[in-house]
């Protein structure tokens, strides 16, 4: 008999936890992904932050990718994928540096005619790549850095979610 109430309790706790986490997850990833993350914000009309954002696993497969001009998704896929060349090179150059002096932000990876590609790598070698419109001069290094930091935080939130299965693709609510 005493087993049954405790079972109930734990179930209740779990659902509570789940519902607390969901908004945090969505808001975290969504706020910095694009303005499209929240449709209200898009209507209010703040400048676009990034045209494409991607989270890439240590083994270089995609965790998450989202781009705003959805019609040319493939182009951004290729852009993010090719940027990994530079990321790899930077990481291997960085490996020589001391662990605590390591800078996570990888700076501008490479410029194309229309876009700038920025990179960021976590200590567990998860890579974030952000594509920004070249014409968007409002974004300076500092803004990019803080965006990456936010992205890193929301990524950490996702990883902390006990219902997340490591290695799976990240499903963000804002991506739906």
């Amino acid at each position, binding site marked *: 008999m005493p087993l049954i109430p405790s079972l109930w309790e734990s179930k209740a706790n779990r659902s509570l936890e789940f519902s607390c986490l969901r908004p945090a997850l969505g808001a975290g990833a969504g706020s910095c992904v694009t303005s499209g993350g929240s449709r209200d914000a898009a209507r209010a009309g703040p400048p676009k932050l990034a045209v494409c954002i991607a989270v890439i696993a240590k083994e270089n*497969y995609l965790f998450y990718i989202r781009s705003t001009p959805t019609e040319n998704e493939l182009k951004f*896929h290729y852009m993010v*994928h*090719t940027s990994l*060349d530079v990321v790899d*090179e930077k990481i291997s150059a960085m490996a020589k540096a001391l662990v605590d002096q390591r800078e996570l932000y990888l700076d501008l990876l490479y410029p*194309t005619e229309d876009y700038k590609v920025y990179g960021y790598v976590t200590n567990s070698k998860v890579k974030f790549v952000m594509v920004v419109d070249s014409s968007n001069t409002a974004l300076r290094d500092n803004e990019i850095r803080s965006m990456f930091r936010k992205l890193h935080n929301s990524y950490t939130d996702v990883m902390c979610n006990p219902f997340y299965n*490591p290695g799976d693709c990240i499903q963000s609510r804002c991506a739906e």
Partner: protein
Amino acid sequence: MSPTQWDLPVELCCRPMAFVTLTGLDVVYNAVHRAVWDAFCANRRADRVPISFKVLPGDHEYPKCRPKRTSYEWYIPKGILKTGWMNKHLNLVPALVVVFYELDWDEPQWKEKQSECATRVEIVRQSLQGRNTKVAVVLIQKKTPLPPGEDVIASERAAALCNACELSGKSLFVLPHTDHLVGYIIRLENAFYEHAQTYYYTEIRRVKSHKEFLNKTTHQLLFVRHQFKIAFFSELKQDTQNALKNYRTAYNLVHELRAHETNILEIKTMAGFINYKICRLCFQHNTPLDAIAQFRKHIDLCKKKIGSAELSFEHAAWMSKQFQAFGDLFDEAIKLGLTAIQTQNPGFYYQQAAYYAQERKQLAKSLCNHEASIMYPNPDPLETQTGVLDFYGQRSWRQGILSFDLSDPEKEKVGVLAIQLKERNVAHSEIIITLLSNAVAQFKKYKCPRMKSHLMVQMGEEYYYAKDYTKALKLLDYVMCDYRSEGWWTLLTSILTTALKCSYLMAQLKDYITYSLELLGRASTLKDDQKSRIEKNLINVLMNESPDPEPDCDIFAVKTAQKLWADRISLAGSNIFTIGVQDFVPFVQCKAKFHAPSFHVDVPVEFDIYLKADCPHPIRFSKLCVSFNNQEYNQFCVIEEASKANEVLENPTQGKMCLVPGKTRKLLFKFVAKTEDVGKKIEITSVDLALGNETGRCVVLNWQGGGGDAASSQEALQAARSFKRRPKLPDNEVHWDSIIIQASTMIISRVPNISVHLRHEPPALTNEMYCLVVTVQSHEKTQIRDVKLTAGLKPGQDANLTQKTHVTLHGTELCDESYPALLTDIPVGDLHPGEQLEKMLYVRCGTVGSRMFLVYVSYLINITAEEKEIVCKCHKDETVTIETVFPFDVAVKFVSTKFEHLERVYADIPFLLMTDLLSASPWALTVVSSELQLAPSMTTVDQLESQVDNVVLQTGESASECFCLRCPSLGNVEGGVATGHYIISWKRTSAMENIPVIRTVITLPHVIVENIPLHVNADLPSFGRVRESLPVKYHLQNKTDFVQDVEISVEPSDAFMFSGLKQIRLRILPGTEQEMLYNFYPLMAGYQQLPSLNINLLRFPNFTNQLLRRFIPTSIFVKVKLKNFLLFKFKVLKTNRLLFHVHFTEQYFETNSDSFAFYSMYLAVLLFISIKLLFIESNFKDLYFLR
């Protein structure tokens, strides 16, 4: 209008060099002139001055100089830069004209020659009318000139010649035609170079002087033109710094021009030219960053200047060319030593050039889709009278018209149409592919594998558009694996879709099937409706029908493809395609799993094949076969389902071989392993799954090993990492991810059902025949045959052990070296169920230490497994570790006849040999006998018979023997004299009668033998008695060959009175003996010192009494009569006030007294003393009571 109109003109791209013409040289018929010319143009390396030479006849007509304009007021320029201008100054208008003339200073007909030379100069001057071109004269002379100043005639005539030709002295040169021609030529050329520089300097000044006449409203174009000319002249002057400066100014001026649709092409063209020059110079000055910055600025400024929308492809073409030209410049700079980096290399520019070329193609496609009926306009509006344009970047039909209004819109329309029609014929794909392959080469160099792959995909797609499907497939196939291995499925799907189109259009069956398989698989991100379509097509193909065309294919290409497919159907040939899946991700997954990592040979081997399909509809396979490393098993593991070709999709849920999407199908296989495979590994080498049947087309999917494709290892890793709880499934279903491939199993022998026991009594004793009893009992249900026993030292131990261990079945005889350490395959016979047999084994261990012994019993038994009779070989082994120890320790010592320890023995004097045998065995030992084998040097005093025959020794007990020996004098032997051997024959007390006795031989130690001059021995009774006479006889033997003088004295003792010679001096002859007789009379009882005998040998002062004491007794025990005396000796050990502990230290009594009387008296005395002492308060050490 040529198709290469976008290429930069050659005269722009070359390095400008001062232009010098040489006249008066007959290079065809005159060998000397030929040599001079060759010296000028051969070996023009970087260390020579940059001049371009040209041989022209003396009367060559140079381009006419237009009359100088006095005022620019009414002048309106028609364009920025004439197309011929650069070429004119590079190749037509020289900076210097050199007149070569053969004339020696001592020429007899000087006057005539001089005037001829002057005439030639004059002709040149005539043709250069109005130009600032310099003229110089070179006299080709046969003689070597004298040093300047020495030849008076020469200097006179030189001055005269200068005068005649109206030349300054600096413009007259002498070229002696001697051996050092090249040296002279180099000096000449340097002089020419100076003249040329002066010429270009004046040209720059001249152009600059025009500036003041210009005004900003009408002469905007001239500002650019003049600035460009100044820069170009500076470059000709090799003043690159100023050239760069002026080009930069010119570039800024170009962008200040008023741009309009009509002149935008001209502006862009000029901007492109100037930009090219700037970048080129920057790279030349080794400031690549400046070059890149300039280029970026240029692109940013010009990107939006598209011009006429109808001709927007021209802009794209121009942009593409800009990037390509910069890429070329960059690449060239790298070849000259510049280092590029991963993120800044020419590849990016080629890539961008390719991108604009693609854009050009797109624009051209949309703008130039005129109907076929529209004819190319006649007359051609793009034709000009001269065939070339007057100004760079102008339209041929309205050259030189500066007005922004279109004067003749009809003409304009025709012109645009002509351009559009021309554009239609351009091979865009070719341009794009060339640019892409340039970029690929660069990215390969700068470690960008992914960028390279991406560009190769683009190349493949471009080949597809260009209808070169073979090349397209080759490229796409090459890069596919990169995307597959990194798991970028979206990209892979896109590539596969293109590849599928290519293979469809070429009707490449195998490729078509492979790509379909992968596009249906889990790696594909296609929508379900697409997948359904592909699946349908695939099945059509397998039923030997044509598939439906892929969407978005060229209609004409589809028509050709349909014909090809129809041909394929009628074509007889191999219709079975085997496709290895390890390199891609097909829509069926396969995993093989043995039920256990090992199987006993008497149990059937079982394994499961799991299959799972990812396609949208259920699919039926026709055959599944599994291959093993031992191919004999292959036949047992085949499932074939006879079905008609059209049933692939029908009755989907029935049948073993029908896979329902997403459901895991388990197929169980069973076979009996061969007995030969016992101890071997059975491995699944491949799994083949056939789709379709052999009447139509058949695809065999081939998995290497136990399944798994290109993506499964990654998935397995993720599944292992995952802690997701899987939902519960019905009993007979499993989760795909939880299945772990197990592609091999071991076949091991049947479990034996017998027991093997060993009975023995450890430890083993060295050299004994150690008995090991092996008991084998069968617990099998049937009779076992061919039981064999292998026993002995376990192989793999120390090699020395093998030498010192011997095993035999016969314990009755001692085994020697010839016996093996391991007895193999001793046949024991058959055993009925429950029967038991015993086997005795004897082991002889020659050395101590532990050994591992192995007892291995093998037998055969008939077994029925899966209705098959098989003969199984079973075996059971037992190992035992046995310690071997020494059975006993033998100690040997030499003592004198007085039992005193001897360091050395004296020649001829008897001594004792004592042996001590201490049993170390935990079991009782029987010493059967012992034997002393003396060395020849030793002699015995009495018989040497064994004193320990048949003695039984328990652990720790010892048996001693004593032998009296004598060693004759041998002289001085180094290291002592051998004594002999001591041989002990023994066995375990528990051993049976027939077990042989073991003889252990112990080598006795050597002794040192020493000679003495005089031997004394005493003859006296074993004890004396108080106040009774004790006769003592001393024998003195002379052991030397000399006569010895001996002094003998006897010292008196308190305990004795004696009679005899107290002091005497006598002489003993060699080898003889002297007797001395004494009569001692003991006065006291106890252990008493005898009166000591002192002997002094006069010849041997070393012979001391110390030595003497070894031979003769020094004391004797003297007894008392009990009737009179009882002597006690007490020692007080400890005293205190109340109690004395008194201890008897010695007691003496006579044995013949009545023992009872003695004891009662003894006790009474003890009591008396105890009581008495209680009252004594003083300390005392020794007390003697006499009563």
